[in-house]
């Protein structure tokens, strides 16, 4: 890759990423997001429940 090319193309372009790559990345993001939501909202260990207690109530996750 020439330096000239990267100077000419300062804007980032996810639109031109091919469909399969976008789908794979999107699935990875959904999995990561679901893990975060599950950890905050559903994980059973008592210390996690107690730390995230008020968040679970505010976000209306099933609790108690």
């Amino acid at each position, binding site marked *: 890759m020439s330096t000239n090319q990267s100077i000419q193309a300062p804007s980032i372009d996810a*639109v031109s990423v091919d469909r399969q790559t976008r789908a794979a*990345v999107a699935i990875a993001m959904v999995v990561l997001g679901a893990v975060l939501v599950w950890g*905050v909202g559903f994980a059973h260990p008592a*210390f996690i429940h*107690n730390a*995230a207690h008020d*968040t679970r109530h*505010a976000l209306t996750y*099933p609790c*108690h």
Partner: protein
Amino acid sequence: MPLSAAGLALRLVLVALLAGAVGGGLLTVLQAIKTEPLIRAAETFEHAATGAAPGGATAAPEEWEPAPGLERWSYTLLANALAATGYALILLAGFTIRRGVTWRSGLIWGLGGFAAFVLAPMLGLPPPLPGTELADLAGRQAWWIGTVVATAGGLALIAFAEPRTKIAGAIILALPHVIGAPTPEGFSAVPAEIAGQFVSATLFTNLVLWLALGALTGLAFSRFVSGSRSAA
């Protein structure tokens, strides 16, 4: 310059962390005003009913729990930011598939997230307050997760699929409510007024959170991920 898969993923994660931090902060402020007074009020009834000491969650007393005040709020802020980051990642995944978004169309996505994660589950399960009478936890969690997935999938089909497949989307959307949510057997000591106010408070809080996340992630995606070629 096309992004690599890793480059795209990194950008999405950074945008999600940014939106999650802002959304988590906003949620914490809304919580302090709207939901927290009701949770504390419900806890006084819960402790009166069970004879437990006031001051925290309902786990066994020997379990660690954050001290009231700054420590409890700090953990709440952290948990809020993590959950908001999770929501943001799911929105950004949708933008990546659909290729383009603006802050305005991000608001519509935010409404969709609100419908899937808050409104549809609440049609079957009232938002739980400490001390209220509730059905078995595992059953409620399963119905909640199933409803979120069915609503998100159903809405996506209705919005983006071909006309005949849209009908399947509507059926998937309705399915959890045909099955029905688990219902509690008894009644609790927490006054119905508190439970009713908590429904309004959580609807308001979560609607604002999702609209903010939708607009923020939409704006950030159009600026930092899809460049100037966002296709609304």
